[in-house]
């Protein structure tokens, strides 16, 4: 449930809002539910609202974990 998409904050605009950019698609969303957002942040967007800031370090960590688990499984690394 609850379709939501990580998108990059491209511009902060008045009224606690922002323009997000997702693969070239730009749309105004509300920041009423989040705090301390700056340009360059990624947020999870749902029905026009940022639900949560995306933790980029954690994302990298998760991806690293995938790779690591594969390595643990004795499989070749993913080609870059």
């Amino acid at each position, binding site marked *: *449930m*609850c*379709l939501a*998409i990580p*998108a990059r904050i491209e511009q902060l605009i008045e009224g606690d809002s922002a323009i997000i950019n*997702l*693969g*070239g*698609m*730009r*749309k105004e969303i509300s920041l009423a539910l989040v705090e301390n957002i700056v340009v360059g942040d990624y947020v999870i*967007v*749902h*029905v026009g609202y940022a639900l949560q800031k995306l933790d980029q370090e954690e994302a990298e960590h998760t991806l690293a974990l995938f790779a690591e688990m594969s390595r643990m499984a004795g499989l070749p690394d993913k080609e870059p």
Partner: protein
Amino acid sequence: MPKPRPLYSRRGRVEILHGSGGRAMAQLVAELFKVAFDNAWLEQGNDAAVLPQVSGRLVMSCDSHVVSPLFFEGGDIGCLSVHGTINDVSMMGAQPLYLTASFILEEGFLFADLERIVASMASAARDAGVSIVAGDTKVVEKGKGDGVFITTTGIGVLREGIVLSGDLAQPGDRILLSGTIGDHGMAVLSRRENLEFDAPIFSDTAPLHGLVANILDCGARVRVLRDPTRGGLATTLNEIAQQSGVGMLLDESAIPVKKPVEAACEFLGLDPLYVANEGKLVAVCAPEDAVHLLEVMRAHPLAREAAAIGEVTEDSRRFVQMATRLGGRRIVDWLAGEPLPRIC
């Protein structure tokens, strides 16, 4: 007696009397449609156009156009209504020749918008080498229409030896697609009220008869041509599978989608496979000819990103299946319901 002044002006609006059959309508036809579409048949002003004898089988198709908004990135309802019908005629392998265009105008529609649309139709027809030889204008009361609806019917001529039909796909045949999908539908959606977004997305609306001519001239054994419009690529392929009594297996990673289209689809919970195209075609051809045909297609400006996206299979259930980019498999079903943005 001096001539009465023109009955419409760029600043004016369509009134009921412009569709009542009287002098106001006659003037609208004379001052707008005849001037823009500029051909001897309309000029004659008879009940019907008398066209030259043609040699070859006739091909005939029609479509009503009800797009909202009327203007969008990359096109408008005017050129769309010309391309849409030209393309259907072309999909049988025919050379489109003549169009009729029927307008249902809503009372209060701006003449400035109508002029823009008519100019777009005229230039689309001119570019495609077809003439708009007959037309009709109706005006409905405010609230009983939606600006303008345009219905076009086209006829074309089919030379000997060309046999294309949705029921000719055979197991083993290859499925080629002339370019990226979803551009038209997302360009329109991006301007839809309550959904507006900005994106470098442009309708692909274009006349495909030139591409079709190249396809037919190259010697490939083509079974089916079809333009994946409403319902998108998914539905078009299901139609062909249904008609031919076959299955299909697509390769998701081979299907070209432009980045912003993919992004907008993700954002709104839509699948580009179900989003409309207005300048693309699907070709089903014999497996041996697929490589050559793909080259021929890619040589045409409207199909530079053409791709082989799958093959026809034997399947009495007529399922279109797809190898997902993740390595799994799934059905690509007919469009069910309407392609509306999801929130869940």
